[in-house]
C-alpha cells in the first residue's frame, strides 16, 4: 500500500512539474544526443518529449507498484523514434542517450522533492522503467536493421539469375557472385523453365563472374548440368579463368563429362554446332 502510494506520489510530482521536466530533458538531449537535433526540429523534439513524459506518468499511475513496465503507448513512441533514427542513419547510441537522459532529469527532480525511503523507491522505479525503455530502442533498432538486410538479400537473389536467349535454341546464364545452395535452386528453376519455354538444346553457363570455385560450387554446377541434361539439353560451362582452372585441379574438382570452354565466344561456337545451326558468317 505504501509503495502504491509511492508510485502515485511520483506520478503526481512528475505531473506537477511537467513543464520543468520537459525543459530540463530537452536541454540534456540537445547536449548529449545532439545528432537527434539534426533530424528533428526543436518543436518536433519538444513534442516527442512531451508525449514521452505523459506516457511515463501514465505508466507510473497504472502499473504494479515497484515494477513499472513500458506500456503499449511508450513502446510505440520508442519504436517510432528508433525507426526514424535508423532511416536517418542515427546510431542507436544516440537514441539510447535520448532515453537515458530522461533518467538523470527525473533523478534531479525527485532528489529535490523526496527523501528517505520514498526517494529510494522513486529512484528504483525510474531506473527500472528507463532501462527497459532503453532496451526497447535497441530491439527496435535491431529489428529494423534486420528488415533492411532481408530486403537487400531478396533484391540480390531476385536480380541475380538472368536467363538470356542468345540465339535460336541457345540459352545463356551469366552467373555472378557466390553460388550457394539457395541460389543454385533458383538458378536450376530459372534454367529449366527457360529450356522448357524456349525448347533450347544448349545452355551456356558462364562462370566468369564467380569469384571462387570450390568443391561445393563445382557440385552445384554439376547438379545444374545434370538437370539440364535430364531435360534433354546440353550444358556448356564457359568463362573458366586460368586461376580458376588451377584451383579446380588442385582441389580435385572433377568435371569429367562436362563440356567446358575457356571463353564465352568459344562456348557460343560450340553451342551452334551442338544445336545443329550454321555459324553466322562474317559480313552477314
Amino acid at each position, binding site marked *: 500500500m505504501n509503495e502504491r502510494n509511492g508510485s502515485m506520489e511520483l506520478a503526481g510530482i512528475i505531473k506537477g512539474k511537467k513543464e520543468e521536466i520537459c525543459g530540463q530533458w530537452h536541454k540534456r538531449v540537445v547536449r548529449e544526443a545532439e545528432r537527434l537535433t539534426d533530424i528533428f526540429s526543436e518543436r518536433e523534439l519538444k513534442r516527442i518529449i512531451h508525449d514521452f513524459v505523459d506516457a511515463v506518468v501514465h505508466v507510473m499511475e497504472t502499473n504494479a507498484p515497484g515494477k513499472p513496465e513500458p506500456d503499449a503507448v511508450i513502446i510505440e513512441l520508442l519504436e517510432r523514434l528508433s525507426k526514424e533514427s535508423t532511416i536517418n542513419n542515427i546510431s542507436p547510441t544516440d537514441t539510447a542517450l535520448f532515453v537515458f537522459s530522461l533518467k538523470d532529469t527525473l533523478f534531479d527532480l525527485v532528489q529535490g522533492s523526496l527523501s528517505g525511503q520514498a526517494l529510494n523507491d522513486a529512484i528504483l522505479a525510474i531506473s527500472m522503467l528507463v532501462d527497459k525503455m532503453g532496451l526497447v530502442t535497441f530491439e527496435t533498432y535491431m529489428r529494423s536493421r534486420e528488415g533492411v538486410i532481408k530486403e537487400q538479400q531478396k533484391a540480390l537473389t531476385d536480380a541475380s539469375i538472368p536467363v538470356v536467349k542468345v540465339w535460336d535454341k541457345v540459352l545463356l546464364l551469366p552467373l555472378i557472385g557466390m553460388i550457394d545452395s539457395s541460389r543454385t535452386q533458383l538458378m536450376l528453376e530459372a534454367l529449366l523453365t527457360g529450356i522448357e519455354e524456349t525448347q533450347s538444346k544448349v545452355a551456356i553457363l558462364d562462370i566468369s563472374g564467380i569469384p571462387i570455385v570450390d568443391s561445393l560450387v563445382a557440385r552445384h554446377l554439376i547438379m545444374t548440368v545434370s538437370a539440364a*541434361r*535430364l531435360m*534433354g539439353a546440353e550444358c556448356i560451362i564457359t568463362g573458366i579463368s586460368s586461376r580458376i582452372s588451377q584451383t579446380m585441379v588442385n582441389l580435385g574438382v572433377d568435371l569429367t563429362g562436362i563440356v567446358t570452354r575457356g571463353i564465352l565466344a568459344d562456348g557460343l561456337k560450340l553451342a551452334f554446332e551442338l544445336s545443329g545451326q550454321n555459324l553466322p558468317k562474317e559480313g552477314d
Partner: protein
Amino acid sequence: MSNITILKLKDDIIVPIQAELHDRSAQKLQMDILQKIENTGAKGLLIDISGVSIVDSFMGRLLGETAKMAGLLGAETVLVGMKKEVVITLIQLGMPLRNLHTALNIEDGLERLERLKSRRGLGKRQVAL
C-alpha cells in the same frame, strides 16, 4: 489399370506415357515394352514422359533399367519431355540418370535416336551434327 499405348514407327518403338504411373503399372509397362522390342526387333526406343509429373526413386531406377534392358536387346533408348518438376526431384534424389539419353521433345528425340543408331552402325546413316 490404364493401358499405355506402345507405338511402332519404322524400326522404332514410341511409348507416350500420358498418365501418372503406379509401381505396378510401371513394371507391367516395362515388361510390355521389352516384349514389343523382342517381337518387332526394333532398334530404337523412345519414351515420352511429358505427361508424368510425379517420379520417385523407384520410377527413376525403373527407367534407367529399362534403357539398359533395351540395350541388351539391341535397342537404343531416348527419354524425352521430362518436366522440370521431375528433373528437380530426380536431381534431389541424387539420380542424374547419366547413362540415359534424353531430348527435349519427340521430334528431337527421334533425331537423337537416329544419331545413336548410326553410331552403332544400325539403321540409315545420318549426317552427324
